[in-house]
């Protein structure tokens, strides 16, 4: 807003409050953002970032020319898309089902338990899952009880590995994801359900015509936000759960970047990372625009 000088003088103190924060963001977020120019340079530690010579799009050519990055990109897209489709609907359904339970203590208990996985890092969870999905672990044990003889190679088979990744990711996010939706559901006035009952709606119809529409805005916001992580595919989880046997489906952009970093191949690592970030921003902007178009400018992230 436009302020005259005396107003500005009065309000200067607010800027002073923001100053330390601005410094932090500048140093730790914006300067690194500038560091992406490494992707366009022939970087050597001796010359530093600024001293190293430009080579334009050379690194990107290498990146997209070789098969390694393309494979990694394919894996990332595949895992990401599956996760977004399944993982997006799951918390909504969980929230709706939880909402249908009328015994308060039961729904609260189940909700509390569902929050347990949120507390734990993927290091912990991956460690636990390596134990539970092992050949002699409880999962295979249960399968043998219902007649499946051969133990399934959950973590070393290409297809099963992806399956486990997706399922455990949904499992971890179920409780925390549902909370946001449950908060929305809680704000629906009870009178709407009374009116619907009188109008003749059964439980399912009430869910469809009252509860679900209320969740739509939150769902859209979260969907747009998840676009930002589209090329991430869950590094934390995959890094801790994968092994060489599944590299050809599990290697994603972030694990690739890590490998490049350890090999001290800074330029490629930066180029790949930058590619990821740029695509994320573009996707968010596109999905936000699409959302605004479809809902007449009402629903969007910003």
């Amino acid at each position, binding site marked *: *807003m436009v*302020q005259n000088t005396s107003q500005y003088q009065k*309000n200067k*103190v*607010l800027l002073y*409050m*923001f100053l330390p924060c601005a410094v932090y*963001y500048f*140093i*730790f*977020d*914006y300067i*690194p*953002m500038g*560091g*992406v120019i*490494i992707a366009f340079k022939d970087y050597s530690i001796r010359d530093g970032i600024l001293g190293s010579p430009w080579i334009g799009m050379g690194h990107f050519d290498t990146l997209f020319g070789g098969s390694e990055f393309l494979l990694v990109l394919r894996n990332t897209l595949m895992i990401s898309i599956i996760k977004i489709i399944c993982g997006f609907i799951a918390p909504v359904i969980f929230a709706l*089902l939880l909402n*249908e*339970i009328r015994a308060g203590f039961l729904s609260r*208990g*189940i909700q*509390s338990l*569902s929050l*347990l996985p949120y*507390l734990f*890092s993927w*290091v*912990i969870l*991956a*460690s*636990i*899952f*390596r*134990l539970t999905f092992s*050949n*002699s*672990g*409880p999962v295979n*044990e249960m399968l043998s*009880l219902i007649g499946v003889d051969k133990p399934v190679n959950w973590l070393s088979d290409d297809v099963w590995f992806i399956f486990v990744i997706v399922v455990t990711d949904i*499992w971890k996010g179920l409780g925390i994801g549902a909370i946001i939706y*449950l*908060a*929305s559901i809680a*704000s629906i006035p009870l009178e709407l359900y009374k009116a619907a009952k009188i109008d003749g709606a*059964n*439980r399912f119809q009430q869910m469809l015509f009252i509860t679900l529409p209320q969740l739509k805005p939150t769902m859209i916001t979260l969907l747009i936000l998840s676009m*930002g992580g589209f090329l991430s595919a869950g590094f934390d989880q995959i890094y*801790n759960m994968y092994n060489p046997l599944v590299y050809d489906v599990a290697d994603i952009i972030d694990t690739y970047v*890590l490998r490049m*970093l350890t090999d001290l191949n800074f330029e490629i*690592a*930066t180029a790949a*990372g930058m590619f990821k*970030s740029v695509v*994320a*921003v573009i996707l*968010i902007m596109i999905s936000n625009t699409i959302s605004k178009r479809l809902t007449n400018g009402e629903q969007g992230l*910003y």
Partner: protein
Amino acid sequence: MIKESFSSRLFDVVNILLLLILSFTMFYPFLYCLVLSLSSEAYASQGGFFLYPRSFDLTAYEAVFSKPHLLTGLMNSILRVLISVPISVFFTALCAYPLSRNETPYRRPLFLFVLFTMLFSGGMVPIYLLYHNIGLLDNRLVYLVQGLMLAFNVILVRNYFQNIPESMHQAAMIDGASEWYIFFRIYLPLSRPILATIAMFQTIFHWNAWFDAMIYMTSDTKVVLQGFLQRIVIQQEWQQLRDIYVGLPPESIKAATVIITVVPILFVFPFVLRHFSKGIMLGGLKE
């Protein structure tokens, strides 16, 4: 009494059953781990489906504690949380306050300045080089810097501040208070619920962080507990223990390490339950 349709009651039964089974899967993995960590060789190698420990053998824990750096890892993690979380909460609120006041000059650009950090990142390499240049590598201070002022958290607190009645601020201004005074003595105390929520987010974040320890620390003594866990279980460092503790199954060692890492965070669980849904509503996320 009003008759309920059969399909409605059937749905209730099936629903509750399904959700109970789901809840069981939520905590069974930990139970399995606990049981495994307390099992001696004979039982653990059997594998299978445990519901309760068949033996109570603390050898695995002994083995894990004997590994150097476990205790230092624990100390590092605790220190990290105790120091980073309060500082982070404070600065998050400090950043949110000017952004919540309409009269802050350049408020909109400043907000976008903060928001953009949530959307775009320089990536692992520039950040690593930055830390290298500033001297944060192999330095415990790097833990403090991680997630100090996450834009997401700032937005939650900002929304909460905006929901505080403007009359509070006006009354204080009339009484002659400065913005600093209002921030410290009025807004912060009133924001306990959202600040507790942010503290909870940060605690879980800092306790679970392992990647920064792995990349930025070269000294073993500065690694946090999760980094330690990662080495033992994922990187298979448990094998070094086999020679000392002959006969101890690797699963037990791994499981014991997990349990040691898990127990402290369980203390946060009640807070999670209490504050999370309140915090999300207060932060206006659904709007």
